[in-house]
Structures are given as C-alpha cells and as structure tokens.
C-alpha cells in the first residue's frame, strides 16, 4: 500500500512562527550533527503545558538527541529551544528542579535501598514529593528496603520513574520507559502515567511501541532522519481517519479485497449481491502501525 501524506507544516522551518514562551517545550529549527551524521535537521515543535506528547521514530531518527537537548544534556548546533520558558543550555538549579528525567539508560547501580535512593534524590529538590507516596504510586512499597540490584527489570524501570517524579516535576521526560516490559507491566505503567497526567504533569515520551503512543498520548509526532514528518492526534495520524478502508470477503472460493473511500456504500452494494451474509466480511482502517510504517518507509 503506497499512499502520500500531506506535506506537513510542522517540519517546515519557515512559517512555524516565533517561540512560544508559555509552552512547556518550544523548539524552532533545531539542528544537531555528530561529525558528518545529521541527527536533527531543522525540527520545530510546541508542546503545551499539561499535554502528553509521544515522539515516535525508528532507532537513530533523532528522538533521544532531541529529548536530551531539551533536558540540557546536549548542546545544539542550530535553532532555538525553550523548556519551561528557559534555554536548556543555561538551565540553572531552579529550572532543573521543575524537570523529571527518566533516561533510556536508567538510573545506574547503587548499594542504597530503594527508599534511600528516593530520599536522597528528593533532598535535591525545592518541593519534593514524599518518597513513600511515590513508592506507593509506582507500586514499589514492598521493595522499599530492597537494594536496587535485587529488583527485576520492570521493577527497576518503575524505580527509574519514581526517581524521575519524586522532585514533583512540572515536565517529565520519559525516554523509552517501557522497553523490556511484559504486557502486564506495560499496562500497569500506563495507568501510572495516566495518574500523573491527572496531577497535571506535562510529559514528553519517546517510544517504539505504537500501541503505547496511542494509549497514552494526546498528540504524536513521527520523527525520521531528524525531521518531524507529522504531528497529529493518534486517531488522525497520516490522515488515518479519512484513509481508504479495506473491505475483504470471500467470493467463489477466493479471498477478495477492495480499498474504498466509501466503505458503507461499498458494503451495501456487496450485501445486495449475496442472498444472506457476505462470507468472511471484514472492514479495516489502516492501523497506526500501517500509517507509521509507510511514513518512515517513505522518508527512509
């Protein structure tokens, strides 16, 4: 299936307008290269406060580089960035006190117990959460006295999230938070993220999992080769809600499929040709995965 997507204004540096100082994150014309490799290539993005924004893209597309520039870990080569109204390149302690960061690489090894780690982390912030409440929130209360290294993979990741939110962040960065989770752990994690949203936390999430983006994000951005190719609500990404539906059925012993912009009319005609039920009838819209794969395939 090849389809064209509307050229998106978001990846076009011109016309994106000035930085939005009230947004949680505002990016204009961001550029970053490592030697010859262009990691981020003129990226524009605004994330309003209170939103959960998911950045989707293949490995090496520039997700982590973009996020780490916003977090203050990397310096940009071009463009302007404001995170909570400040330039992350010059972020001071007060600015950092409003951020929560869950790194892709995790929080590292420690001889401290889970509670001790959270207590130490909380003591760096202006207005921290109670460590025990955070443990409750991420479901690690029973592991409070365990050392970090005795935790399972999923528990460790929840500890990473606990460390990320104990400072009561206004803006939380989550870089591939559920990689390596089993389905059950991911569902639990999603409900944790939703409860944080209810507390008003803005989140920038990167993920490989489309179902995760669809379940959590208010808006999704697809990034390939350092450019945002589209930003949309998950349901309409790539014109998905108006994309042709695929109708399939069995006729004369063979499987037939037909792509149509008007599936209702098509099925009505189809029904008229059969005396009873249309055999094996199915109507499908492209899934987020279909749209995503054709998007990144197109620009790869």
């Amino acid at each position, binding site marked *: 299936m090849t389809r064209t997507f509307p050229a998106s204004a978001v990846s076009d540096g011109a016309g994106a307008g000035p930085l939005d100082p009230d947004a949680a994150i505002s990016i204009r014309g961001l550029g970053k290269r490592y030697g010859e490799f262009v990691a981020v290539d003129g990226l524009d993005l605004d994330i309003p406060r209170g939103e959960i924004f998911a950045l989707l893209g293949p490995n090496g597309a520039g997700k982590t580089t973009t996020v780490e520039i916003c977090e203050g870990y990397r310096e940009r080569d071009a463009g302007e960035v404001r995170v909570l109204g400040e330039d992350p390149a010059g972020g001071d302690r007060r600015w950092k006190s409003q951020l929560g960061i869950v790194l892709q690489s995790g929080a*590292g090894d420690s001889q401290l117990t889970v509670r001790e780690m959270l207590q130490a982390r909380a003591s760096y912030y202006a207005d921290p959460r109670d460590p025990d409440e955070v443990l409750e929130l991420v479901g690690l209360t029973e592991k409070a006295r365990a050392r970090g290294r005795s935790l399972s993979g999923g528990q460790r990741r929840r500890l990473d999230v606990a460390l990320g939110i104990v400072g009561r962040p206004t803006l939380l960065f989550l870089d591939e938070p559920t990689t390596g989770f089993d389905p059950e752990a991911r569902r639990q994690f999603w409900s944790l993220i939703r409860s944080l949203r209810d507390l008003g936390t803005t989140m920038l999430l990167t993920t490989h999992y489309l179902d995760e983006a669809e379940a959590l994000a208010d808006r999704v951005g697809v990034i390939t080769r350092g450019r945002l190719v589209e930003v949309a609500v998950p349901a309409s990404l790539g014109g998905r809600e108006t994309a042709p539906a695929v109708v399939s059925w069995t006729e004369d012993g063979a499987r037939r499929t037909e792509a149509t912009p008007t599936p209702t009319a098509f099925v009505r005609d189809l029904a008229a040709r059969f005396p009873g039920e249309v055999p094996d009838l199915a109507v499908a819209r492209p899934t987020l995965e279909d749209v995503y794969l054709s998007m990144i395939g197109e620009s790869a």
Partner: protein
Amino acid sequence: MTAVREGAVLPSVVAVCRTRAGVELKEFFRQREAVVFTLMFPVILLLVFGAVLNYDIGHGVTFTQYFMAGIIAAGILGAGLQNMAIGIATERSDGTLKGLAGTPMPKAAFFVGKVVQVLVVTVLIEAILLFVGAVFYGVTLPSGSRWLTFAWVTVLGSAACTLLGIAISSLAKNGRSASATVTPIALVLEFISGVFFRFSQVPTWMQTIAALFPLKWMAQGLRSAFLPDALAAQEPAGSWELGRVALVLALWCVIGLLLCIRTFRWQDR
C-alpha cells in the same frame, strides 16, 4: 497544576553536601569488594610483612617500622586514586552520573561527597594500620611534631591522589577497565616507591621513575614521621627533603585539579 510551590526554596548547598556524604559512605561500606580491597588489603599486607620480614634494618629499627610508612602511603593511594578512578568510572558507565547531572543537585556537592568518602576511609585505614602495627609488631608511633608531619603528608597526599583518581576515571571506558589499568600501575608504583622494599634497595633508574609520581614522596614524608633521623642518611638525598615532599605533592594537586577541570564528564561519549 504542579508548578513549584510559591515560595518553595531550593535546599542549601550544605544540606545537599550532607546528603551526598551519607550516600557516598553507604555506597562504599556496603560494597564488599571495596571494603576488602581498599580497606582490608593494606591491613593484611601489614600482618603478612610484619610476620615475615620483621628484621633489623639498622639503628635498632625493624623493617615493620619502615614498612609502616610505606603501607600507610599505599593505603592513601588506594582510598584516593584507585577508589576514585574505579568508582567514578563505574558510575559514569552505568548512568549514575548522568542521572545526577539531570537533577538540581549542585555539582560541587558531588565532589564534596567523594572527598568525605576518601577522608573517612583514609583515616580509618590509618587508624587500623597504626593499631595493628603498635599492638602486634611493636611499631613505635610518631610523637610530638611528627604527628604534624604525618597529618600534612596524609592531607596533601590524599588530595593529590583523589584529584588524580577523578581525572583518571575519565580515561576509562568503565569500572572494570579502570580497575584493570589502575591496579597494576598502583602495584608497580608500590614496588618501586619504597613501599614493599626499602627505597635504598631499589635500582637508581627505578628510583628516578618513582620520583616522578606522588607515592614515593608520600612514603618518604611518612618515613620522616616513623623513623629516627639517623635513617634519613639512607634516603637518596641523605635527608627527608620535607620541603620537596610538600612541593611535589602540591604540584600533583595542581596537575590533578587541572586535569579534572579539563576532562571530567558526567556521561559517556
């Protein structure tokens, strides 16, 4: 909204330093390998050498009395240089440092925590070594102004070793490679710097190499605290050269500090 509460103030740097000091002490004393390797190894060496090599080296002084200065210098080296190089390389490669850099922790508090860790471990090593030496091998402890020499050599030597250890940590890929590099170097330095043998028995060319590094000067300065002045004649210059000890160690502090400032990284490349 969860914006920082009106009037919420960042914790004071002193308070965060206190937290970091507590964290660093727990990290050290709960790690069995660190405690055994850094803290107990010099003690074991003292017990072994004291039992095997307790012969007279002249002027009624036993080798154990001589070895006391060397093993304390080696203990300072272990607690400062090896401990920092391996510990920080490990924390850099496993993401601990990167995680901290993303918090509002004042960067200085991290280093204060490390210094407290080194100081506590160093003082503990010295206390145990002095106790074991005095009780089991009749080592004569320094007296009067010699304690002062003991103290300043410890502080200056420890500072140089700690700064160098932090600088070296940036060269290593991870804790294991730091350990594989630093441990043999430290061992060789200990052999040629007058820790395990009397420095006067080390070939001159090796003495020259040893003189480029801090350990030789730490051991020499500490010998002046443990040995009668009559034995100063056995030193390369025929005296304790305390002025030069202070100068070389201070120089290494400056070199170490400059290297730290230029090379310290909070994350892997």
